[in-house]
């Protein structure tokens, strides 16, 4: 590293820390009695010391001083990576699946709870990934389909006594239909306009759920939704519910994988890249965009039905814009269009806020900071979609 580079590094660190102080002071320092500094300083000094240490270590590593630790570490991680690449994919998948299967045996109530919400978000993320990642249609009202699925199960089971397993496909279908309803008028729109219309759609659905008292019981929500049961066995415990959503998530992963590698998936990608060119190549863009909305909504509908049965309660406040934004963040952060990426994105964004529970007040601040850092360091996502010529290469 040249002197100049190192100077630039330290100057930007200084500027960054100063900016952070300016941000932190009003947050912590404004008290009823006026502006005070001691608490701000207590927090700031720790962070500043940590940042300086990190930069110093980085500096030393660049200079090669730490090679005696670093080199063996790099060698080890390379060896692990090589082993990873040599192992067949099915083996890795089997290990992951086995771990997922025995997980509830080792996790407590809290662990199961977090795992269930991870799996729900995996379904949502993968569904949104079809719309945003593959077909390239920005959808900011995606959570509406989750709501449709949840209310579909709640109402059908309470009013008609239908079982969870009958309602599951119905909820998925109703969500798919509402996907078509929003898809249809927006098909001619692109980019920003599409985002705003879908945002509006999401809010409309939420407002309907909130205000249609006779059907949805308004803001009070619907109580006493039955848990799923299977030939007399009731999925009452959290760990048994975990297996239900694990099944739905595995189904989602398989379905999205198949879609991804099908002609339809390829056509979606072509539409994302250049709609007119896709049309000139014989892709029915109208039908395929509608299909993308419908498929994406289907998985949200499945997850929604499960959510209603797991909470035994649905209310409109579960389906706000923030949720849509959260799912979108998981997809973008993980890597658009990549299945392992989306799963990783979900894990990070669900697990992080849980890890930071100790920080209490600063939880969301830390969360936001980590999110920004990750996007700066890995703009294409944690696990970007791999692009190699699939079909023709395989034929050779």
């Amino acid at each position, binding site marked *: 590293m040249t002197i100049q580079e190192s100077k630039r590094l330290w100057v930007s660190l200084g500027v960054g820390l100063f900016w952070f102080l300016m941000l932190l002071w009003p947050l912590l320092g404004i008290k009823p009695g006026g502006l005070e500094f001691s608490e701000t300083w207590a927090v700031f000094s720790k962070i500043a010391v940590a940042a300086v240490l990190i930069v110093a270590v980085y500096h030393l590593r660049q200079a090669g001083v730490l090679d005696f630790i670093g080199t063996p570490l790099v060698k080890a991680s390379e060896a692990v990576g090589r082993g990873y690449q040599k192992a067949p994919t099915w083996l890795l998948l089997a290990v992951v699946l086995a771990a997922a299967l025995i997980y509830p045996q080792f996790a407590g109530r809290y662990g199961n709870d977090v795992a269930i919400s991870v799996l729900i978000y995996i379904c949502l993320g993968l569904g949104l990934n079809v719309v945003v990642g593959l077909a390239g249609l920005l959808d900011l009202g995606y959570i509406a389909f989750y709501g449709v699925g949840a209310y579909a199960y709640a109402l059908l089971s309470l009013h008609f006594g239908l079982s969870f397993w009958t309602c599951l496909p119905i909820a998925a279908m109703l969500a798919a239909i509402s996907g078509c309803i929003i898809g249809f008028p927006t098909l001619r729109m692109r980019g920003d306009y599409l985002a705003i219309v879908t945002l509006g759609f999401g809010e409309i659905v939420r407002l309907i759920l909130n205000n249609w008292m006779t059907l949805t019981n308004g803001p009070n929500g619907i109580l006493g939704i039955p848990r799923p049961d299977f030939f007399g066995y009731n999925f009452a415990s959290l760990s048994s519910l975990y297996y239900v959503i694990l099944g739905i998530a595995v189904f989602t992963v398989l379905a999205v994988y198949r879609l991804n590698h099908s002609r339809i998936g*390829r056509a979606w990608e072509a539409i994302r890249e250049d709609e007119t060119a896709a049309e000139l190549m*014989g892709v*029915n863009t109208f039908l395929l965009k509608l299909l993308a909305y419908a498929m994406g909504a289907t998985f949200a509908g499945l997850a929604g039905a499960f959510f209603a049965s797991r909470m035994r309660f649905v209310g409109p406040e579960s389906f706000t814009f923030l949720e849509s934004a959260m799912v979108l963040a998981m997809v973008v952060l993980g890597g658009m269009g990549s299945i392992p990426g989306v799963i990783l994105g979900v894990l990070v964004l669900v697990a992080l806020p849980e890890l930071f529970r100790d920080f209490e007040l600063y939880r969301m601040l830390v969360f936001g900071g980590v999110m920004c850092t990750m996007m700066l360091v890995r703009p294409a996502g944690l696990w970007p979609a791999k692009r190699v*010529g*699939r*079909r023709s*290469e395989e034929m050779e």
Partner: protein
Amino acid sequence: MNQDSRQPILELRNVVSAYGRIRALKGISLKVFDGEIVTIIGANGAGKSTTLMTMCNVVKAVEGDIFYKGERINDVAPDQLPTRGLCQVPEGRRIFPRLTVTENLDMGAFFRRDSAGIKEDLERVYDLFPKLRERRRQLGGTLSGGEQQMLAMGRALMSRPRVLLLDEPSMGLAPLLVKQIFDIIATINGQGVTVVLVEQNANLALQCAQRGYVLETGSVVMEDEASALLHNPDIRKAYLGE
């Protein structure tokens, strides 16, 4: 040879196309016969690209008729036309930037189901553009301009077109590459593909084509044998820069 007695493979009769209220084509009639190269030349904004897009029904004709293989195709969906052998390489290439070269070529054969034939055509395209074979795993968007042009043409060839519409294939290419592209157009034509060629480079286009149409603000102002247009003093002055 009396051309009017033959049945054209592609024909526009008094076609009017509009973007909103603005009429970009003001009643265009032109004929393309099987096996020939026809060029359409004209100034910027004359409506050349619009003509090609109207042939593919991406821009809908508001008046007039489009005939392809003797059949009126005004109401055929644009995605159905490649399956019938009418394919376009649009202006500015419009390849799929985040798909690999092979995937781009695959998209050209999207509607086809004969995997053996697709594989054969893939080899044919790679033989025609050896550069693409070298780069087959590279993302389309990272190719150079010339390579992208080759990819766009190769992609269209993957649909086994009867009629190929080319919109400014020489745009932004170095002279040597332009010559190469025109040689390939002649080769493709020699393999029995009818070509409609829109070009800024009127000189080369008229040398390559058998017949030509001159477009001016949405109307055909002249049509003739290419060699006659090439020696027409008005054309030389207006489009060949003399």
